[in-house]
Protein backbone atom coordinates (compact mmCIF):
# COMPACT_ATOMS: atom_id res chain seq x y z
CA UNK A 1 0.00 0.00 0.00
CA UNK A 2 1.33 3.40 -0.89
CA UNK A 3 1.10 6.17 1.61
CA UNK A 4 1.17 9.79 0.55
CA UNK A 5 3.83 12.07 1.87
CA UNK A 6 2.81 13.46 5.23
CA UNK A 7 3.99 15.99 7.76
CA UNK A 8 6.21 13.34 9.29
CA UNK A 9 8.34 13.08 6.25
CA UNK A 10 8.75 16.71 5.39
CA UNK A 11 12.08 18.42 5.53
CA UNK A 12 11.46 20.11 8.81
CA UNK A 13 11.57 17.11 11.08
CA UNK A 14 13.63 17.85 14.19
CA UNK A 15 16.89 16.22 13.19
CA UNK A 16 16.72 17.67 9.71
CA UNK A 17 15.77 21.06 11.02
CA UNK A 18 18.73 20.97 13.40
CA UNK A 19 21.10 20.04 10.56
CA UNK A 20 19.52 22.75 8.44
CA UNK A 21 20.00 25.39 11.14
CA UNK A 22 23.57 24.31 11.82
CA UNK A 23 24.49 24.41 8.16
CA UNK A 24 22.72 27.72 7.61
CA UNK A 25 24.31 29.25 10.71
CA UNK A 26 27.76 28.24 9.49
CA UNK A 27 27.00 29.31 5.94
CA UNK A 28 25.50 32.65 6.95
CA UNK A 29 28.46 33.33 9.29
CA UNK A 30 30.92 32.65 6.49
CA UNK A 31 28.89 34.70 4.02
CA UNK A 32 28.70 37.58 6.49
CA UNK A 33 32.44 37.42 7.09
CA UNK A 34 32.99 37.51 3.35
CA UNK A 35 30.57 40.42 2.97
CA UNK A 36 32.29 42.21 5.86
CA UNK A 37 35.66 41.89 4.12
CA UNK A 38 34.15 43.04 0.81
CA UNK A 39 32.39 45.89 2.63
CA UNK A 40 35.67 46.99 4.19
CA UNK A 41 37.40 46.89 0.81
CA UNK A 42 34.57 48.92 -0.70
CA UNK A 43 34.81 51.42 2.17
CA UNK A 44 38.58 51.70 1.66
CA UNK A 45 38.14 52.27 -2.07
CA UNK A 46 35.67 55.10 -1.36
CA UNK A 47 38.10 56.57 1.15
CA UNK A 48 40.99 56.34 -1.35
CA UNK A 49 38.85 58.03 -4.01
CA UNK A 50 37.90 60.83 -1.63
CA UNK A 51 41.56 61.34 -0.58
CA UNK A 52 42.60 61.36 -4.21
CA UNK A 53 40.09 64.14 -4.92
CA UNK A 54 41.19 66.05 -1.83
CA UNK A 55 44.88 65.67 -2.72
CA UNK A 56 44.60 67.99 -5.74
CA UNK A 57 42.76 70.66 -3.77
CA UNK A 58 45.08 70.46 -0.77
CA UNK A 59 48.17 70.52 -2.96
CA UNK A 60 46.98 73.86 -4.34
CA UNK A 61 46.47 75.12 -0.78
CA UNK A 62 49.93 73.86 0.18
CA UNK A 63 51.57 75.64 -2.78
CA UNK A 64 49.73 78.84 -1.91
CA UNK A 65 50.84 78.58 1.73
CA UNK A 66 54.39 77.77 0.68
CA UNK A 67 54.53 80.96 -1.39
CA UNK A 68 53.19 82.99 1.53
CA UNK A 69 55.79 81.49 3.90
CA UNK A 70 58.54 82.11 1.36
CA UNK A 71 57.44 85.72 1.00
CA UNK A 72 57.35 86.19 4.76
CA UNK A 73 60.84 84.67 5.07
CA UNK A 74 62.43 86.63 2.23
CA UNK A 75 60.73 89.99 2.45
CA UNK A 76 58.91 90.60 5.72
CA UNK A 77 60.41 88.72 8.69
CA UNK A 78 61.30 89.82 11.36
CA UNK A 79 59.39 93.12 10.90
CA UNK A 80 56.24 91.13 10.16
CA UNK A 81 55.98 88.17 12.52
CA UNK A 82 52.40 87.14 11.68
CA UNK A 83 52.17 83.63 10.29
CA UNK A 84 50.13 83.55 7.02
CA UNK A 85 46.56 82.29 7.50
CA UNK A 86 43.70 81.21 5.25
CA UNK A 87 39.98 80.79 5.84
CA UNK A 88 39.95 77.67 3.63
CA UNK A 89 42.46 75.60 5.60
CA UNK A 90 44.71 75.43 8.64
CA UNK A 91 48.45 74.89 8.39
CA UNK A 92 51.60 74.18 10.39
CA UNK A 93 55.33 74.12 9.80
CA UNK A 94 57.81 71.66 11.34
CA UNK A 95 61.60 71.74 11.18
CA UNK A 96 63.99 69.14 9.81
CA UNK A 97 63.98 67.19 13.10
CA UNK A 98 60.17 67.10 13.18
CA UNK A 99 59.84 69.76 15.90
CA UNK A 100 56.98 72.21 15.64
CA UNK A 101 57.84 75.75 14.54
CA UNK A 102 54.30 77.07 14.31
CA UNK A 103 50.90 75.38 14.10
CA UNK A 104 47.27 76.31 13.58
CA UNK A 105 46.18 72.64 13.34
CA UNK A 106 43.41 71.15 15.43
CA UNK A 107 45.18 67.78 15.54
CA UNK A 108 48.88 67.04 15.91
CA UNK A 109 50.32 65.39 12.79
CA UNK A 110 50.66 61.62 13.02
CA UNK A 111 52.75 60.86 9.95
CA UNK A 112 55.74 62.60 8.39
CA UNK A 113 55.98 60.00 5.61
CA UNK A 114 52.40 60.01 4.28
CA UNK A 115 51.33 62.74 1.93
CA UNK A 116 47.62 62.56 2.84
CA UNK A 117 45.66 60.84 5.60
CA UNK A 118 42.50 61.14 7.71
CA UNK A 119 42.79 62.15 11.34
CA UNK A 120 39.75 62.40 13.63
CA UNK A 121 37.32 64.52 11.61
CA UNK A 122 40.03 66.21 9.51
CA UNK A 123 42.34 65.49 6.63
CA UNK A 124 46.06 66.22 6.74
CA UNK A 125 48.12 66.90 3.65
CA UNK A 126 51.90 67.01 3.92
CA UNK A 127 54.21 68.96 1.63
CA UNK A 128 57.87 68.32 2.14
CA UNK A 129 60.02 71.38 1.44
CA UNK A 130 63.36 70.61 -0.15
CA UNK A 131 66.54 72.67 -0.45
CA UNK A 132 65.30 75.87 1.17
CA UNK A 133 63.84 75.72 4.67
CA UNK A 134 61.87 78.95 4.72
CA UNK A 135 61.29 79.99 8.34
CA UNK A 136 63.23 76.80 9.12
CA UNK A 137 60.36 74.65 7.81
CA UNK A 138 61.04 71.25 6.31
CA UNK A 139 57.44 70.00 6.61
CA UNK A 140 54.32 71.97 5.75
CA UNK A 141 51.01 70.48 6.91
CA UNK A 142 47.64 71.55 5.52
CA UNK A 143 44.54 70.57 7.51
CA UNK A 144 40.93 70.69 6.33
CA UNK A 145 37.69 69.54 7.94
CA UNK A 146 36.44 66.32 6.41
CA UNK A 147 33.27 66.22 4.33
CA UNK A 148 31.51 63.00 5.33
CA UNK A 149 29.28 62.70 2.26
CA UNK A 150 31.53 59.98 0.84
CA UNK A 151 31.21 57.96 4.05
CA UNK A 152 27.44 58.16 4.15
CA UNK A 153 27.31 57.05 0.52
CA UNK A 154 29.79 54.24 1.12
CA UNK A 155 27.87 52.92 4.15
CA UNK A 156 24.57 53.20 2.27
CA UNK A 157 25.99 51.20 -0.64
CA UNK A 158 27.57 48.61 1.68
CA UNK A 159 24.30 48.07 3.57
CA UNK A 160 22.19 47.97 0.43
CA UNK A 161 24.40 45.66 -1.61
CA UNK A 162 25.34 43.67 1.50
CA UNK A 163 21.69 42.98 2.34
CA UNK A 164 20.97 42.10 -1.27
CA UNK A 165 23.95 39.74 -1.43
CA UNK A 166 22.97 38.21 1.91
CA UNK A 167 19.45 37.48 0.65
CA UNK A 168 20.69 36.03 -2.65
CA UNK A 169 23.40 33.94 -0.98
CA UNK A 170 20.91 32.91 1.72
CA UNK A 171 18.56 31.58 -0.97
CA UNK A 172 21.48 29.75 -2.56
CA UNK A 173 22.36 28.35 0.88
CA UNK A 174 18.83 27.09 1.38
CA UNK A 175 18.95 25.51 -2.06
CA UNK A 176 22.29 23.84 -1.32
CA UNK A 177 21.20 22.56 2.06
CA UNK A 178 18.14 20.97 0.50
CA UNK A 179 20.40 19.19 -1.95
CA UNK A 180 22.77 18.08 0.83
CA UNK A 181 19.93 16.88 3.07
CA UNK A 182 18.05 15.07 0.33
CA UNK A 183 19.73 11.66 0.90
CA UNK A 184 18.91 11.82 4.61
CA UNK A 185 15.34 12.91 3.91
CA UNK A 186 14.90 10.18 1.33
CA UNK A 187 16.05 7.49 3.74
CA UNK A 188 13.71 8.77 6.48
CA UNK A 189 10.84 9.00 4.01
CA UNK A 190 11.52 5.45 2.92
CA UNK A 191 11.50 4.25 6.54
CA UNK A 192 8.31 6.17 7.30
CA UNK A 193 6.55 4.84 4.23
CA UNK A 194 7.66 1.31 5.03
CA UNK A 195 6.31 1.59 8.55
CA UNK A 196 3.03 3.04 7.34
CA UNK A 197 2.58 0.43 4.67
CA UNK A 198 3.37 -2.51 6.95
CA UNK A 199 1.36 -1.23 9.92
CA UNK A 200 -1.88 -1.70 8.05
CA UNK A 201 -1.02 -5.30 7.39
CA UNK A 202 -0.30 -6.16 11.06
CA UNK A 203 -3.66 -5.51 12.65
CA UNK A 204 -5.68 -8.53 11.59
CA UNK A 205 -3.11 -11.25 12.34
CA UNK A 206 -2.18 -9.75 15.74
CA UNK A 207 -5.81 -9.43 16.78
CA UNK A 208 -6.45 -13.02 15.69
CA UNK A 209 -3.46 -14.34 17.65
CA UNK A 210 -4.35 -12.45 20.86
CA UNK A 211 -8.04 -13.37 20.67
CA UNK A 212 -7.25 -17.06 20.15
CA UNK A 213 -4.75 -17.10 23.03
CA UNK A 214 -7.45 -15.70 25.32
CA UNK A 215 -9.98 -18.30 24.08
CA UNK A 216 -7.73 -21.33 24.49
CA UNK A 217 -8.67 -23.75 27.20
CA UNK A 218 -5.57 -23.85 29.41
CA UNK A 219 -6.91 -26.54 31.73
CA UNK A 220 -6.70 -29.07 28.89
CA UNK A 221 -3.13 -28.09 28.25
CA UNK A 222 -0.02 -29.69 29.57
CA UNK A 223 2.48 -27.59 31.56
CA UNK A 224 4.93 -27.63 28.68
CA UNK A 225 2.37 -26.35 26.20
CA UNK A 226 1.14 -23.70 28.66
CA UNK A 227 4.67 -22.31 28.87
CA UNK A 228 4.79 -22.18 25.10
CA UNK A 229 1.45 -20.39 25.08
CA UNK A 230 2.76 -17.81 27.55
CA UNK A 231 5.72 -17.21 25.24
CA UNK A 232 3.37 -16.78 22.29
CA UNK A 233 1.27 -14.40 24.36
CA UNK A 234 4.35 -12.31 25.27
CA UNK A 235 5.50 -12.20 21.67
CA UNK A 236 2.04 -11.26 20.45
CA UNK A 237 1.70 -8.52 23.07
CA UNK A 238 5.12 -7.14 22.14
CA UNK A 239 4.07 -6.99 18.51
CA UNK A 240 0.71 -5.57 19.55
CA UNK A 241 2.45 -2.82 21.56
CA UNK A 242 4.62 -2.02 18.58
CA UNK A 243 1.53 -2.01 16.38
CA UNK A 244 -0.20 0.45 18.74
CA UNK A 245 2.81 2.78 18.55
CA UNK A 246 3.02 2.56 14.79
CA UNK A 247 -0.71 3.09 14.39
CA UNK A 248 -0.51 6.13 16.66
CA UNK A 249 2.44 7.43 14.73
CA UNK A 250 0.84 7.05 11.34
CA UNK A 251 -2.84 7.64 12.00
CA UNK A 252 -4.02 8.33 15.51
CA UNK A 253 -2.22 11.54 16.31
CA UNK A 254 -3.81 13.13 13.28
CA UNK A 255 -7.34 12.36 14.43
CA UNK A 256 -9.20 14.81 16.60
CA UNK A 257 -8.53 14.25 20.32
CA UNK A 258 -11.38 12.71 22.24
CA UNK A 259 -10.66 14.16 25.71
CA UNK A 260 -12.47 12.70 28.68
CA UNK A 261 -11.91 12.11 32.40
CA UNK A 262 -9.41 9.33 32.80
CA UNK A 263 -8.90 7.50 36.07
CA UNK A 264 -5.12 7.20 36.01
CA UNK A 265 -4.96 4.72 38.88
CA UNK A 266 -7.24 2.30 37.02
CA UNK A 267 -5.37 2.89 33.77
CA UNK A 268 -1.95 2.19 35.30
CA UNK A 269 -3.22 -0.93 37.06
CA UNK A 270 -4.72 -2.17 33.79
CA UNK A 271 -1.52 -1.53 31.83
CA UNK A 272 0.65 -3.16 34.53
CA UNK A 273 -1.61 -6.19 34.33
CA UNK A 274 -1.28 -6.19 30.54
CA UNK A 275 2.52 -6.12 30.74
CA UNK A 276 2.78 -8.49 33.69
CA UNK A 277 3.44 -11.53 31.50
CA UNK A 278 6.26 -9.70 29.74
CA UNK A 279 7.69 -8.54 33.09
CA UNK A 280 7.42 -12.02 34.59
CA UNK A 281 9.31 -13.51 31.67
CA UNK A 282 12.21 -11.19 32.59
CA UNK A 283 11.68 -11.71 36.32
CA UNK A 284 11.03 -8.02 36.77
CA UNK A 285 8.73 -7.12 39.63
CA UNK A 286 6.32 -4.19 39.94
CA UNK A 287 5.88 -2.05 43.03
CA UNK A 288 2.85 0.17 42.80
CA UNK A 289 2.26 3.19 45.03
CA UNK A 290 -0.86 4.66 43.52
CA UNK A 291 -3.16 7.35 44.81
CA UNK A 292 -6.33 8.51 43.07
CA UNK A 293 -5.79 10.94 40.24
CA UNK A 294 -7.93 12.00 37.32
CA UNK A 295 -6.93 13.78 34.16
CA UNK A 296 -8.97 15.34 31.36
CA UNK A 297 -7.18 13.80 28.39
CA UNK A 298 -7.57 11.52 25.38
CA UNK A 299 -7.65 7.93 26.71
CA UNK A 300 -5.74 6.44 23.77
CA UNK A 301 -2.99 9.01 24.06
CA UNK A 302 -2.41 8.78 27.81
CA UNK A 303 -2.44 4.97 27.40
CA UNK A 304 0.36 5.34 24.82
CA UNK A 305 2.37 7.38 27.35
CA UNK A 306 1.90 4.87 30.16
CA UNK A 307 2.43 1.84 27.88
CA UNK A 308 5.67 3.18 26.46
CA UNK A 309 7.11 4.14 29.83
CA UNK A 310 6.25 0.72 31.33
CA UNK A 311 7.36 -1.14 28.20
CA UNK A 312 10.75 0.64 28.23
CA UNK A 313 11.15 0.07 31.96
CA UNK A 314 10.71 -3.68 31.36
CA UNK A 315 12.71 -3.81 28.13
CA UNK A 316 15.77 -2.03 29.50
CA UNK A 317 15.63 -3.55 32.98
CA UNK A 318 18.00 -6.16 34.38
CA UNK A 319 16.85 -9.67 35.14
CA UNK A 320 15.37 -9.76 38.64
CA UNK A 321 15.09 -5.98 38.47
CA UNK A 322 12.15 -3.96 39.68
CA UNK A 323 9.87 -1.17 38.51
CA UNK A 324 8.35 1.30 40.95
CA UNK A 325 5.33 3.25 39.77
CA UNK A 326 4.19 6.13 41.93
CA UNK A 327 1.00 8.05 41.23
CA UNK A 328 0.04 11.23 43.02
CA UNK A 329 -2.61 13.79 42.27
CA UNK A 330 -0.33 15.95 40.11
CA UNK A 331 2.23 13.55 38.75
CA UNK A 332 3.30 9.97 38.23
CA UNK A 333 6.78 8.43 38.25
CA UNK A 334 8.10 5.30 36.55
CA UNK A 335 11.39 4.18 38.05
CA UNK A 336 13.41 1.18 36.94
CA UNK A 337 16.61 -0.54 37.95
CA UNK A 338 17.78 -0.96 34.38
CA UNK A 339 20.80 -0.16 32.28
CA UNK A 340 20.33 3.60 32.43
CA UNK A 341 21.46 6.18 29.89
CA UNK A 342 24.58 8.29 29.70
CA UNK A 343 23.76 11.70 31.23
CA UNK A 344 24.98 13.48 28.10
CA UNK A 345 22.53 11.52 25.93
CA UNK A 346 19.42 11.97 28.10
CA UNK A 347 18.23 14.88 25.96
CA UNK A 348 18.35 12.71 22.84
CA UNK A 349 16.05 9.95 24.06
CA UNK A 350 12.94 11.61 22.65
CA UNK A 351 14.29 11.73 19.11
CA UNK A 352 12.54 9.47 16.65
CA UNK A 353 14.47 6.33 15.63
CA UNK A 354 16.96 7.00 18.46
CA UNK A 355 17.93 3.77 20.20
CA UNK A 356 20.65 3.46 22.81
CA UNK A 357 20.71 -0.29 23.03
CA UNK A 358 20.56 -2.37 19.87
CA UNK A 359 20.23 -5.61 21.84
CA UNK A 360 16.55 -4.86 22.45
CA UNK A 361 13.96 -4.75 19.69
CA UNK A 362 11.95 -1.75 18.57
CA UNK A 363 12.13 1.17 16.20
CA UNK A 364 13.02 3.86 18.69
CA UNK A 365 9.67 5.57 18.32
CA UNK A 366 8.07 5.00 21.74
CA UNK A 367 9.54 7.97 23.61
CA UNK A 368 9.09 10.15 20.55
CA UNK A 369 5.37 9.42 20.76
CA UNK A 370 5.42 10.09 24.51
CA UNK A 371 7.09 13.45 23.91
CA UNK A 372 4.62 14.48 21.20
CA UNK A 373 1.65 13.71 23.50
CA UNK A 374 3.34 15.44 26.44
CA UNK A 375 3.86 18.53 24.30
CA UNK A 376 0.31 18.42 22.93
CA UNK A 377 -1.23 18.51 26.43
CA UNK A 378 1.37 20.75 28.05
CA UNK A 379 2.49 18.03 30.43
CA UNK A 380 6.03 18.16 31.80
CA UNK A 381 8.42 15.27 31.59
CA UNK A 382 11.75 15.03 33.40
CA UNK A 383 14.26 12.23 33.03
CA UNK A 384 16.98 11.33 35.52
CA UNK A 385 19.24 8.49 34.57
CA UNK A 386 22.41 6.93 35.86
CA UNK A 387 24.32 4.49 33.71
CA UNK A 388 23.98 0.88 34.96
CA UNK A 389 21.79 2.05 37.85
CA UNK A 390 18.45 2.91 36.33
CA UNK A 391 16.16 5.57 34.98
CA UNK A 392 13.45 7.66 36.62
CA UNK A 393 10.86 9.38 34.47
CA UNK A 394 8.44 11.82 36.02
CA UNK A 395 5.36 13.14 34.24
CA UNK A 396 3.71 16.19 35.81
CA UNK A 397 0.20 17.32 34.97
CA UNK A 398 -0.51 20.97 34.18
CA UNK A 399 -2.71 22.85 36.59
CA UNK A 400 -5.24 23.73 33.92
CA UNK A 401 -6.05 20.06 33.30
CA UNK A 402 -6.60 19.58 37.02
CA UNK A 403 -8.72 22.73 37.23
CA UNK A 404 -10.98 21.34 34.55
CA UNK A 405 -11.45 18.36 36.78
CA UNK A 406 -12.17 20.52 39.82
CA UNK A 407 -14.67 22.52 37.78
CA UNK A 408 -16.51 19.37 36.78
CA UNK A 409 -16.44 17.97 40.33
CA UNK A 410 -17.74 21.21 41.76
CA UNK A 411 -20.36 21.48 39.04
Amino acid at each position, binding site marked *: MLVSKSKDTNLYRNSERRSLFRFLALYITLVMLLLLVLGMLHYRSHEALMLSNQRTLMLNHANKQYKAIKKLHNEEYPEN*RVYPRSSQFRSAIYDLSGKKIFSLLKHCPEHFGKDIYRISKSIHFLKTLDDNYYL*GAKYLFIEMDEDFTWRREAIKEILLYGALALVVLGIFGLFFVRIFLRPMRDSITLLDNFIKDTTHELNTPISAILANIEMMDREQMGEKNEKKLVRINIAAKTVSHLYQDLTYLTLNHKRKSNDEWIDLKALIEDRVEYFSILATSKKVSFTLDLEASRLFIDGVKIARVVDNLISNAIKYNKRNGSIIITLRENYFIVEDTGIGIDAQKVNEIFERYRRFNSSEGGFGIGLNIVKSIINEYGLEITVHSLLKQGTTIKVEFPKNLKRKEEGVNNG
Partner: protein
Amino acid sequence: MAKRVLLICLMLLLNAKADVYHDACVTCHQYQPATLEKMFMLYLKTYSVELSFKVSLKEFLKKPTEKKSLIGSEFIRNFSVKDPTRLSDKELDEAINTYWDLYNPKKNLK
Protein backbone atom coordinates in the same frame (compact mmCIF):
# COMPACT_ATOMS: atom_id res chain seq x y z
CA MET B 1 63.71 92.52 49.21
CA ALA B 2 65.34 89.23 48.24
CA LYS B 3 63.08 89.06 45.20
CA ARG B 4 64.17 92.49 44.05
CA VAL B 5 67.85 91.59 44.41
CA LEU B 6 67.28 88.40 42.44
CA LEU B 7 65.46 90.29 39.68
CA ILE B 8 68.21 92.91 39.41
CA CYS B 9 70.87 90.16 39.22
CA LEU B 10 68.91 88.42 36.49
CA MET B 11 68.53 91.63 34.49
CA LEU B 12 72.24 92.37 34.83
CA LEU B 13 73.03 88.86 33.67
CA LEU B 14 70.76 89.18 30.64
CA ASN B 15 72.13 92.59 29.91
CA ALA B 16 75.66 91.21 30.07
CA LYS B 17 74.70 88.46 27.56
CA ALA B 18 73.04 90.98 25.29
CA ASP B 19 76.07 93.09 25.53
CA VAL B 20 78.35 90.43 24.07
CA TYR B 21 76.03 90.09 21.08
CA HIS B 22 75.61 93.87 20.82
CA ASP B 23 79.28 94.72 21.19
CA ALA B 24 80.64 91.97 19.00
CA CYS B 25 77.97 91.75 16.30
CA VAL B 26 75.49 94.61 16.13
CA THR B 27 78.05 97.40 16.29
CA CYS B 28 79.63 96.35 13.00
CA HIS B 29 76.70 94.73 11.14
CA GLN B 30 74.42 97.76 11.57
CA TYR B 31 76.57 99.60 9.02
CA GLN B 32 77.02 96.68 6.64
CA PRO B 33 74.84 95.59 3.70
CA ALA B 34 74.78 92.06 5.15
CA THR B 35 72.41 92.82 8.01
CA LEU B 36 72.06 90.44 10.96
CA GLU B 37 68.42 89.82 10.05
CA LYS B 38 69.34 88.78 6.51
CA MET B 39 72.19 86.60 7.74
CA PHE B 40 69.85 84.92 10.23
CA MET B 41 67.28 84.16 7.55
CA LEU B 42 70.02 82.80 5.30
CA TYR B 43 71.31 80.45 8.00
CA LEU B 44 67.77 79.45 8.99
CA LYS B 45 66.84 78.69 5.38
CA THR B 46 69.93 76.52 5.03
CA TYR B 47 70.05 74.62 8.33
CA SER B 48 66.44 74.61 9.63
CA VAL B 49 67.34 73.07 13.01
CA GLU B 50 68.65 75.11 15.95
CA LEU B 51 71.65 72.89 16.65
CA SER B 52 72.89 72.84 13.04
CA PHE B 53 72.34 76.58 12.84
CA LYS B 54 74.42 77.31 15.92
CA VAL B 55 77.20 74.82 15.21
CA SER B 56 77.71 75.94 11.61
CA LEU B 57 77.60 79.62 12.55
CA LYS B 58 80.11 79.13 15.38
CA GLU B 59 82.41 77.18 13.10
CA PHE B 60 82.27 79.90 10.45
CA LEU B 61 82.87 82.72 12.93
CA LYS B 62 85.89 80.96 14.40
CA LYS B 63 87.43 80.03 11.04
CA PRO B 64 85.67 81.94 8.28
CA THR B 65 86.31 80.71 4.72
CA GLU B 66 84.67 81.43 1.41
CA LYS B 67 83.61 77.81 1.20
CA LYS B 68 81.82 77.90 4.53
CA SER B 69 80.24 81.26 3.86
CA LEU B 70 76.59 81.26 2.88
CA ILE B 71 76.75 84.68 1.40
CA GLY B 72 77.11 85.05 -2.37
CA SER B 73 80.55 84.94 -4.03
CA GLU B 74 80.03 88.38 -5.54
CA PHE B 75 79.64 89.85 -2.07
CA ILE B 76 82.85 88.18 -0.94
CA ARG B 77 84.70 89.47 -3.99
CA ASN B 78 83.62 93.00 -3.03
CA PHE B 79 83.95 92.80 0.74
CA SER B 80 86.18 89.75 1.31
CA VAL B 81 85.62 87.11 3.99
CA LYS B 82 85.35 88.46 7.54
CA ASP B 83 88.15 88.07 10.07
CA PRO B 84 88.03 85.25 12.62
CA THR B 85 86.31 86.23 15.85
CA ARG B 86 88.32 87.22 18.85
CA LEU B 87 85.61 86.10 21.25
CA SER B 88 86.20 83.16 23.54
CA ASP B 89 84.10 80.03 23.04
CA LYS B 90 81.93 80.99 25.96
CA GLU B 91 81.35 84.51 24.69
CA LEU B 92 80.72 83.23 21.20
CA ASP B 93 78.09 80.78 22.49
CA GLU B 94 76.43 83.57 24.44
CA ALA B 95 76.35 85.83 21.42
CA ILE B 96 74.98 83.09 19.14
CA ASN B 97 72.31 82.12 21.68
CA THR B 98 71.19 85.73 21.97
CA TYR B 99 71.14 85.98 18.19
CA TRP B 100 69.05 82.78 17.88
CA ASP B 101 66.58 83.83 20.56
CA LEU B 102 66.16 87.25 19.00
CA TYR B 103 64.96 85.98 15.63
CA ASN B 104 63.89 82.35 16.28
CA PRO B 105 60.53 81.98 14.45
CA LYS B 106 59.41 79.32 16.93
CA LYS B 107 59.30 82.02 19.60
CA ASN B 108 58.43 84.98 17.48
CA LEU B 109 55.77 83.90 15.03
CA LYS B 110 52.24 84.86 15.99
